[in-house]
């Protein structure tokens, strides 16, 4: 019987020869190799959510295998169909072990090849097994490695310790420390949606801005293929966020680049984003389908059904247009030119603030933005125009971006203590905005309906009208929370931390 939930390891595939070659303490390794090998695919999301949690998920034929486990991998039969989203998996041991995963991310084959199972038993002079390990040797085209699940046997703790030591001597690392994907594919670069940007004490504002833009251009590029293949909607979402961050660097980092260049670049990135806006809106609608249906009584569902059908058709068309754009030589030329420009800094002249120290520059920008937010918020009560709330939302977003860009330059804990309540405030403002945007776009959708097919359009208009009413009600509810949310964010501690970090402790 196994004692506890033990970690799984990743080790070079030749470790088996090393382990069986010589005695391990007073014990000897006995290997039993599986007769056959099987095809395998390592599955993970684009952002390697599972790998970052120290989990390895493998598909082999009709089975899913998952490490770490108490002993051996956890397995679940899933049949012949491809597994796209974890949420689509039938209930079973693997589904349960996966727990909470990002619902919108699909599982992709990150590496593939053939897999062979080898059992290792450490036996004593009586041929009694004192510790065990199950190896799954994965061989891909460009690399190989073995996932090892050691198993402790009750009463033989010493043998288990020796086994782990021997594995360590072979270079074994736990799955939290090592990446199966990287071991099988040495050229693999993990995708990181929020790159860790380093900010040295002497970094200039110009270098900081250029560094951020370079990093996010790379992020945007990593999402193109997934948008074109329509793998999942997070590719487009991340692509847009990357471009939006670049645009906010250009507008928030005032005078870091020459004015004219900044303006031209801002326009260029806005144009790139404009092509993606409608598709993103439609993605959100499709995602919220159930939510909308739940908002309305069943008598109005037929109209909604029709609306979603129209959305689905429009989405197909939008996706085709965007995919064609992303694959066009013109786009390739444009994005390559942008990357080269920020790489070489050619035709990217610094503005008057370009040479300033990034950290003092950041403190100035953040403090200014924070003061502005406080000013707006102080003027808001339950009667204030919605416009002001929208303004508050936009300023909070800018503050959040600024803080995230410059996070490496400030103490981690203090920074986190500011970001957490800020995120909460933004959630409230975000919902308020979403309901408002949805009302507007649904109204626009109604206006766009032609005069043809009058009867069905009436039905549709009834449903959408009711939906707008409900969304309006929801928006009012969020609106009522704004004053409290801001007060929660702007506590005495928050105010003090902002002063300390960004304004030399002064108010």
């Amino acid at each position, binding site marked *: *019987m196994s*004692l*506890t939930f033990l970690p799984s390891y990743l080790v070079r595939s030749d470790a088996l020869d090393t382990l069986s070659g010589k005695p391990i303490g007073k014990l000897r390794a006995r290997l039993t190799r599986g007769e056959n090998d099987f095809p395998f695919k390592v599955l993970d999301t684009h952002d390697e959510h599972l790998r970052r949690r120290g989990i390895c998920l493998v598909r082999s034929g009709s089975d899913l295998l998952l490490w770490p486990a108490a002993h051996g991998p956890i397995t679940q039969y899933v049949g012949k169909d491809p597994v796209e989203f974890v949420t689509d998996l039938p209930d079973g041991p693997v589904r349960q072990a996966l727990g909470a995963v990002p619902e919108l991310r699909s599982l992709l084959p990150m590496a593939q090849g053939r897999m062979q199972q080898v059992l290792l*038993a450490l036996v004593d002079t*009586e041929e*009694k097994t004192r510790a065990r390990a199950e190896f799954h040797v994965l061989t891909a085209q460009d690399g190989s490695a073995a996932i090892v699940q050691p198993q402790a*046997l*009750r*009463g*033989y703790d010493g043998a288990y310790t020796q086994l782990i030591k021997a594995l360590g001597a072979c270079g074994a690392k736990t799955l939290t420390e090592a990446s199966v994907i990287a071991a099988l594919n040495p050229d693999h670069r993990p995708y990181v949606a929020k790159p860790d940007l380093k900010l040295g004490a002497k970094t200039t504002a110009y270098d900081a801005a250029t560094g951020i833009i370079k990093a996010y251009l790379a992020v945007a590029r990593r999402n193109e293929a997934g948008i074109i293949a329509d793998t999942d909607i997070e590719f487009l979402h991340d692509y847009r966020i990357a471009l939006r961050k670049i645009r906010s660097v250009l507008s928030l980092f005032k005078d870091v680049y020459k004015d004219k260049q900044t303006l031209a670049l801002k326009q260029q990135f806005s144009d790139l984003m404009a092509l993606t806006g409608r598709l993103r809106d439609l993605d959100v609608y499709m995602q919220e389908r159930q939510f909308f249906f739940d908002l309305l009584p069943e008598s109005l569902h037929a109209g909604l059904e029709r609306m979603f059908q129209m959305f689905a058709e429009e989405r197909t068309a939008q996706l085709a247009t965007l995919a064609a754009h992303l694959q066009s030589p013109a786009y390739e030329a444009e994005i390559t030119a942008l990357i080269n420009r920020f790489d070489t800094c050619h035709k990217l002249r610094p503005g008057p603030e370009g040479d300033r120290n990034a950290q003092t520059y950041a403190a100035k920008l953040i403090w200014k933005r924070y003061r502005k937010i406080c000013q707006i918020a102080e003027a808001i009560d339950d009667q204030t125009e919605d416009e002001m709330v929208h303004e508050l939302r936009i300023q909070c977003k800018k503050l959040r971006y600024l803080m995230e860009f410059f996070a490496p330059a400030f103490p981690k804990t203090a920074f986190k203590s500011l970001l957490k309540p800020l995120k909460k405030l933004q959630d409230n403002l975000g919902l308020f905005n979403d309901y408002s945007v949805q009302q507007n776009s649904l109204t626009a959708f109604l206006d766009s309906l032609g005069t043809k097919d009058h009867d069905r359009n009436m039905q549709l208009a009834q449903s959408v009208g009711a939906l707008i009413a409900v969304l309006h009600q929801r928006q009012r509810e969020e609106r009522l929370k704004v004053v409290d949310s801001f007060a929660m964010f702007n506590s005495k501690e928050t105010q003090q931390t902002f002063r300390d970090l960004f304004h030399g402790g002064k108010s």
Partner: protein
Amino acid sequence: MKIIACYSNKGGVGKTATAVNLAYALAAKGQRTLLCDLDPQGASSFYFRVKPSKKLTETKFFEDVERFTKAIRASDFDGLDILPANMTFRDFDVFLSRMRNSRSRLKKALKAVKGDYDVILLDCPPNISTLSENVFSAADGIIVPVIPTTLSQRTYIQLEQFFQANKLPLKKLHAFFSMTQGVKSLHGQTMEDMRKQHKKRFLKTQIAFTSDIERMGVQRAPVMATAPRSQAAQAYGTLHDELMERL
């Protein structure tokens, strides 16, 4: 949780072979099983290649939860653990009652190491002592191998008399014929007599005397693991099924 004792007041009747194969069969059927080797002459630990622990020579042992849980050894088979303790246990009844009591420290300690067993199988020494008395009252069932000879018949009767004298329920006894030999007509006659005489006490299954069981000493593993298709392995399988149905 069930406690099953494997007992015979006569040696050399295939008691340990029964305990070893029964333990294996229980674990193979998904019952988390602890086999306690209580017989200093028996060798259930030997069959599982588990070396006896030097630390376990004190009679007070069962009062010491930690030492008890530490003494348990995993066998090479999933779901089957061994307590390789061959000695006399003064406090064995205390131990058994604690195993039953879900609130006892012993039980909690076992749970903590995932040693919450479904079945505890006791391979008992072949005598009637304080230990066996404790075992008889604590066990849910006592499986008794009987060689169908006149001598064995007499020792079995002694066991029933002991039960009656000590007001122990006879229905706890589940006897079966062990090491039977088809060619010996005496065996057939004795079995017939005993089944009549001790109605309901004897299981239908009998374990024949085969070389597969003899070879267990060389193989040092249950015959059910080394020769699962053999007649002996199948007979132990049936014995397990029949016993579990009765318990």
